[in-house]
Structure formats: structure tokens, C-alpha cells
């Protein structure tokens, strides 16, 4: 589904619950360079919204405005109905942040880092409890005991599979392990809103799965999540809705279903012989195929983007099969493939490059 820049014209059924994140006409400049060029979207309570996009599209910039690191150059931004910069104080205890990179004190151990964050949360009136609220995966009965490391800290580390590293200096962690620690810190205080900037970049497949589970559990518990990622499967698996950004603009926006539908279906088959041309083949709904000649045969591909996403492939197939019957041909290796998120992504990038 391609829409103009005002993305939330859809009026989703959850609107009554209120939008936790509201971005309207956001522009953000670094000096003369405009990194974000007027984007709008909303995230209702309890939803996970994924920002996809090319490198330098402005995802991190958008996140950081929402996190209150810098005031917006133009446009409005609200998180839980509050201004992230001017009402940072009220907002801070209710928000969890996972930055794209860095920011640890290398001389602290993993457990000390978690302890520090727990302490800071407690000071802000947001005690870290392991019971109540969201069910945490990673059974609580499995607590390992490490000397000098408290139960709550151990629990946070188990959540992300770092319990064996409790007494390791943060400096010595691998890239993926740092990412996991980062996640543990971000979710420590059960935030109402969670900002995750490329949470699984650098994680191994197993850690990625654990991370997805942690995020899904929090979301099921009512946390609203804004996430950026370069992994399309991650967005597909986690997101209620998503937007694809490129050069400071949102080009595609909607539910995964809607975005995928916008990328169209393909019907592909092979005909024997290399004498076929466009004129010989039918054009269902005016769609002409692309032909490739190889190995004494002709590969035929129809890209079907218009019409009803639910029924268009079926509708296009009918005249093709009728044509085959009529001409006594067989559509060899006939394949119908639904569009993918990747198709949608490539289209955004392709159109603009």
C-alpha cells in the first residue's frame, strides 16, 4: 500500500486506545543537511511499529527526536502525550531505550552495569521487580548463583542469556553480547514505551530468536515498541505495522499485509521453444509479461500489482490457463508467488535511485 506522507489516514480500530507515539510532519536538520524531510506516523498503545529503510534514511534520527535527545527542527512529536524534550523528566522513567551503538563503561562488569541501571531506575521511583507485569521468558527458577551478584540482576542477565558473563568486564564482551546487555538494560524497568534501534544487529540466530521472544512478551504485556531493523523477517515477524524510509521520507506505510500486497504477485512459467513473443501471449488485465529465452525454452513472468490483492492472482491465472488449453500448450513449472517485503523494499529503493 503506497500512501502520501500523511501515513495514518487509515483510522485503525485501535484508535480509541490512544496513540502512544505521534509524529506529525517531522523535519530534522543537521546544519544544512535535512536528514528527515517531513514524516508522519502514529503508534497505538501496545503495538509494535517497525521503521525500515536504507542506510542514512533517517531512522536513527527519528528515534532520537522521539527519545528527546534533540528538539525537532519542525513538526510535532509526542510520546505518551508528552513532549520528549520539554517533558523529558516525566517521560524518562516510563521509556526504555536501546541506542544503535556504544555507551558502556568498559571498566564495569556486566553485573555491575545492570546494577547501576537498576539503581538509577529505583532512584527514579521505578523499582525493578521480576514478578508481576509481563511474564519473562527464561524460567525464574533457573537462577544461577554467582557470588556477589543479586537475584534481580541475575534474572535480567538470564533474560538475554548473559548469566555466564556476569563478572566479565563490559570491555571484553563481543559485539553481539554487548547488544544483549543493551537489551537487558532497555527492558529492565518494564517501560511503557520501548525504542529499539537495530536491536538484533550482530546477534547470532539463537540470540535473535531470544530477543524476538523478549520483545514479543513485553509487547503482549502492553508495552508499545518502536523498532528499526534491516532484517525484513524481523519486521515481518514482530511488527503490527511498518514504514519504509528512504532519504528522509516514508515511502511505504501500512500493516505487513498491506505493504506486501502493494508489492504485487508474480506468475511465472516456461514454454517450450524460443519463438514466443509478447503478441502471442495473453495480457490479463492489460499486464504484459517479460520473456527470457534460455535452454531452448522461454521463461514467462507476469508481475501483477493492480486489482484486489486477495483475488488478483487467481483472476490472472484463468485467462492464462484458457489460453494454454486453446493452443494446446502446457505451462511448465507454473509458479504463483505472493509479493514479499523485500520486493516492496527494493521497489522503494529502485524507484528513487
Amino acid at each position, binding site marked *: 500500500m503506497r500512501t502520501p506522507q500523511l501515513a495514518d489516514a487509515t483510522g485503525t480500530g485501535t484508535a480509541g486506545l490512544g496513540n502512544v507515539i505521534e509524529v506529525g510532519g517531522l523535519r530534522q536538520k543537521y546544519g544544512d543537511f535535512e536528514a528527515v524531510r517531513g514524516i508522519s506516523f502514529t503508534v497505538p498503545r501496545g503495538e509494535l511499529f517497525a521503521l525500515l529503510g536504507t542506510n542514512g534514511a533517517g531512522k536513527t534520527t527519528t528515534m532520537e527526536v522521539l527519545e528527546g535527545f534533540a528538539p525537532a527542527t519542525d513538526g510535532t512529536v509526542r510520546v505518551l502525550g508528552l513532549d520528549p524534550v520539554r517533558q523529558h523528566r516525566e517521560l524518562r522513567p516510563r521509556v526504555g531505550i536501546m541506542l544503535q551503538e556504544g555507551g558502556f563503561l568498559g571498566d*564495569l562488569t556486566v553485573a555491575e552495569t545492570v546494577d547501576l541501571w537498576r539503581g538509577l531506575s529505583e*532512584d527514579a521511583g521505578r523499582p525493578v521487580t521480576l514478578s508481576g507485569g509481563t511474564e519473562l521468558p527464561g524460567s525464574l527458577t533457573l537462577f544461577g548463583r554467582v557470588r556477589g551478584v543479586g537475584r534481580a540482576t541475575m534474572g535480567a542477565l538470564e533474560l538475554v542469556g548473559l548469566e555466564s558473563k556476569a563478572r566479565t568486564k563490559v570491555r571484553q564482551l563481543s559485539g553481539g553480547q554487548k547488544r544483549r546487555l543493551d537489551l537487558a538494560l532497555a527492558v529492565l524497568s518494564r517501560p511503557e514505551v520501548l525504542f529499539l534501534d537495530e536491536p538484533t544487529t550482530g546477534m547470532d540466530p539463537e540470540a535473535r530468536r531470544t530477543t524476538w521472544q523478549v520483545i514479543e512478551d513485553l509487547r503482549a504485556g502492553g508495552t508499545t515498541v518502536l523498532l528499526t531493523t534491516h532484517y525484513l523477517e524481523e519486521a515481518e515477524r514482530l511488527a503490527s505495522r511498518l514504514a519504509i524510509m528512504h532519504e528522509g521520507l516514508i515511502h511505504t506505510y501500512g500493516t505487513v499485509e498491506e505493504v506486501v500486497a502493494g508489492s504485487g504477485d508474480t506468475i511465472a512459467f516456461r514454454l517450450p521453444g524460443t519463438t514466443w513473443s509478447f503478441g502471442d501471449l495473453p495480457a490479463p488485465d492489460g499486464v504484459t509479461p517479460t520473456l527470457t529465452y534460455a535452454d531452448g525454452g522461454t521463461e514467462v513472468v507476469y508481475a501483477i500489482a493492480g486489482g484486489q490483492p486477495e483475488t488478483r492472482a487467481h483472476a490472472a491465472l484463468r485467462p492464462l490457463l484458457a489460453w494454454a488449453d486453446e493452443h494446446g500448450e502446457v505451462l511448465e513449472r507454473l509458479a504463483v508467488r505472493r509479493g514479499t517485503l523485500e520486493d516492496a523494499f527494493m521497489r522503494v529503493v529502485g524507484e528513487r535511485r
Partner: protein
Amino acid sequence: MRTDVLHAVRLARLDLTLVARNTTVMFNVLLLPLLMAWMFTQTQTGADIAGVSGELFVLTGVPGLMLGFAVFINLVNSFTARREELVLKRLRGGQPSGPAVLGGAALGALALFLGQVVLLAIWMHRTDGVMPANVPLLLVVAVLGVALFGLLAAAFSGITPNAELAQITVLPVIMVMMIGAPVAYPADVLPGPLGVVSNLLPVTPVVEIMRTAFLGADHVSGSGAALGMAGQWVAALPSLGILLAWVAVAALLARWLFRWEPRHG
């Protein structure tokens, strides 16, 4: 507010832990100033200055130098390194507010500084049998001095591109303090313009009030006349005023120059 105080205390404790873990910092912050204190005393053995022994005169002035090391150099280093490693950004994006992060750093530095002043006091008591005459005044001037040099450190970290270059950006300040501060001799004995400059330096009122508070005698005007408690406060008043003005200037500088995040491109 309460949250900010709790955060600042927690971050100050963190800083002290990290200082204790880092031998380089331990040496630069704690040992080096004491070593210098000893060297300075060696230049003044025997001579009496403003009515006290040279050694005592120097020791009561050394806290001025310690502000340069335990507070200024220490904080320029830590602000710069933490900014470049995105620690400041992460802290401020987490629970603590900006003032709490800066306050925590200042509080940690204050603890280090007071620790050194206590060591000096013990040293003075051992060698000269002197007890600090006015502890409240000592504390007030310590707090103001740390605030002043903490803010200056915040400002200087802003013009320091990375942690390695911090050694260089702090140099001018440290040089001026070593030469201009009235540690080994009163500001007024410096020849002509140097004396004027010395009297304008932010470290000078700190040293003069410290000395007055330690010895219970007027070392602000330089007369060395013995004073009662009230007299000490009155004598210190103009210098406290100058100090406050400097704190305000440093706060403006810090506001202007301090950065929470590395500069891009």
C-alpha cells in the same frame, strides 16, 4: 529534585569506584598533587611568609593546585572520554537528567578533593601541630572551588576533540595555575602585571580563603593578622564574591561549550 540528588550520589560513587580501579588516574589525581606539594614545600624551607613558616604557607595553598588535578584534569578527561564513547549520551537518555549527570561528576570530584585536603590537614598537624581553624569556611570554599573547576572542566571538554588531546587542552590552565596561584608566595609579591593577573585568577580567591580558614589569620589581604571566626568570614567575603562571579562565568562557558555527544563530520 530528590531523584536528581539520588542519581548524582549514585554516579559519584560510581566515579570513585572507577578511579580506584584505574592506576593512571589514581596517580594523576591523587599522588601527583601530593608529590608536587612536597616539592613546593622544599622551595620554601626556613623562610617565614606572612607570619607563618614557609612550609605551612605552601601546604595551606596546595589545595589550589589540587583543584587543578583532582577536579579540573580529572573531569576534562572523564567528560571527554565519556562523551566520545557515548556514555554521556546513554546516561542522559536513561534515567538521570543532565544536571544529575554533571552533579554526580562534581560530587565525585568533591569527595576526592576533600580526601586530599584531609591528607594535607593531617600532614600539617604532624609537622606543625596546626589544626584547621574554620572548618565551615573550608567546606564552603571547597564546594565553590569544585563547582568552579567542575564547570570549567565541562567547558574545556567541549573544545577537546578526544581523550588523548585532553592532556594538551588542560595544559594552559594548569600552567597558569602553577605559576600564578599564590601557593608558594602571596599574590602581592609578584612583580607588577603578574601580581594583577594573579589577583584575577579564579584559583587565587580559593587559595587565599583556604589559607585563612586553615590558619585563622587574614591571608586574603596578606597581612597575616590573627582573626576570630567572624573576622575570618568577613575577611573572606570579598574573595567569596569574586569566586561566585567566577562560578557564574564558568557556568555560562560550560553552557556554551559543553557537549553531550561527539561532533559528526
